[in-house]
């Protein structure tokens, strides 16, 4: 047996609903089955997760899909050859607005009930009115500059012709989102689970649309590893990918989704009630207390028989790169020179899963 089999792997993640494949692979023994001794290490910020991966303190990490590209390009700090051989999930984010802003939208647009998914035009009317009345700009939060949350928020605002000059965009850690919304520091946010359901259950906000309503199915979290790590331990990366994809497949059925919610709710992981974790996992978007949830079958997508959700496709990387460029995070020149096939490694993925 290869010596890799007994070697430990330290896997970093951020405690979110879509860390399910990692938690499932650990708790159900898929890593062990593949001969790996994996330690899961929760990280409190994406920056620290990134720095530790760059430094080799973490061997691999549950990363936001744009992060390997940002690392490879050195957009935030020194460039580092981070690549992904596996997509862990698609979708999973949603936009939640404060009750006050929701009421303002309803009043301004003469809505008597909710039109969901909410059109950004309805918000645009509020933004325009506030500008006319010289009132404070609305402030929206996401979790990290190089995240789908941020690009989805920007795209949604743009769909309502809302200029970024007319609102304020800030970064708030997910753990502080609900409180920040409640005390009026922010008026809304785009974030992943369980933080949308948490605000709704607490009665602090209304989840007006999900990322599925903004973008077609698109990679949300990926497995990030350094290219050097892969060169040194190809067998370990293969086993990691196999165990994690096995967990993604296992997450296909509704009973297993419930079971994963139970695992995630534990103290070691999300330490949150099942009623805020389970909904998105079973394809249900809780909107507002007293209203029936919206059915969003692909809310958290880990695997599909119809499409290869887990392959890190070049198309997906190009989509993300275009978003980075359109939000001014990198120049056209840099964007045109990036070799994305070295970052989104579908070649490694296909090599692993074709044999």
């Amino acid at each position: 047996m290869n010596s890799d089999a007994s070697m430990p792997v330290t896997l970093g993640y951020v405690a979110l609903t879509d860390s399910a494949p990692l938690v499932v692979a650990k708790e159900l023994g898929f890593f062990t089955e593949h001969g790996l001794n994996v330690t899961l290490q929760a990280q409190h910020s994406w920056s620290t997760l990134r720095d530790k991966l760059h430094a080799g303190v973490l061997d691999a990490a549950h990363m936001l899909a744009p992060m390997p590209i940002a690392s490879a390009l050195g957009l935030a700090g020194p460039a580092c050859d981070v690549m992904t051989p596996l997509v862990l999930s698609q979708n999973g984010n949603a936009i939640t607005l404060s009750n006050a802003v929701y009421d303002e939208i309803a009043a301004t647009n003469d809505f008597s009930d909710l039109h969901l998914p909410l059109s950004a035009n309805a918000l645009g009317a509020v933004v325009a009115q506030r500008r006319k009345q010289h009132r404070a700009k609305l402030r929206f939060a996401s979790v990290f500059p190089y995240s789908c949350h941020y690009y989805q928020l920007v795209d949604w605002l743009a769909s309502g012709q809302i200029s970024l000059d007319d609102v304020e965009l800030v970064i708030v850690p997910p753990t502080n989102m609900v409180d920040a919304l409640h005390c009026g520091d922010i008026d809304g946010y785009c974030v992943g689970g369980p933080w949308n359901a948490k605000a709704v259950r607490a009665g602090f906000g209304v989840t007006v649309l999900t990322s599925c309503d903004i973008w077609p199915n698109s990679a949300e979290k990926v497995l990030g590893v350094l290219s050097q790590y892969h060169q040194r331990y190809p067998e370990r990366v293969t086993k990691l990918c196999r165990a994690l994809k096995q967990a993604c497949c296992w997450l296909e059925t509704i009973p297993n989704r419930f079971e994963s919610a139970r695992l995630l709710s534990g103290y070691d992981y999300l330490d949150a009630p099942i009623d805020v974790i389970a909904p998105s996992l079973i394809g249900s978007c809780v909107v507002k207390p007293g209203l029936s949830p919206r059915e969003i079958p692909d809310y958290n997508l880990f695997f599909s028989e119809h499409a290869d959700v887990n392959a890190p496709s070049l198309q997906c990387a190009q989509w993300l790169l275009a978003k980075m460029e359109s939000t001014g995070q990198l120049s056209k020149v840099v964007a045109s020179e990036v070799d994305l096939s070295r970052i989104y490694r579908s070649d490694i993925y296909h090599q692993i899963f074709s044999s």
Partner: protein
Amino acid sequence: MFCFVPSRFYVCLATLLHVDDMNSPSRLSILLIDDNHARAQAFTAALVESRYHVTHLSSATQRLLKDVDRIQPDIIVIDIESPSRDVLDSLHTISSVAPKPVVMFSDEEDTDIINQSVRSGVTAYVVGDTEPKRVRSILDAAVARFGEYQRLRQELDETKHALAAKQTIDKAKRLLMQQRGMDEQQAYSAMRKMAMDVGQKIEDIARTLLSVLNHLDNGK
């Protein structure tokens, strides 16, 4: 232990940029974000009677941007495990708050490895503990490196800008030569005269000309 990672936190510090002399008596304010009170106290104590003035926040997360704006610190010191790191990381990317150099506390044995990796970037600094002399020298080095980094960055930006301006002017000149049958000197003089007449920079005139001439060209 703590380590210094300024490479992704930028500009501000008009004051810092001029602090070339490390013996300068100018006061620098530090925003310390740490839930570990014992460590925060040791850190603050290490800086008594120094040029650093410490403001301590324990759980600073949700109003952090406001606090940065209000306190206008010259340096931020934060626990590497704090969720607020992402807020600081975003200062120059999407927020209008002026970025600051950041020094990070870490209790981890991994600090050396992290520092080694960060050092490969623009600046980084390794530290041992909250022993007063060490703390001061780390902060001094952090300030110096950040200032140096900002200067280099500014130079690079200026060079890039100058190059882009020259390219725009050359392009406008060529278009004038093609479309108006001027020679190079005439084209340049025409643009310079326009710039002087309207009180604009010649590159702005070139940009306007390009847009107008291209538009006319497309309309043909």
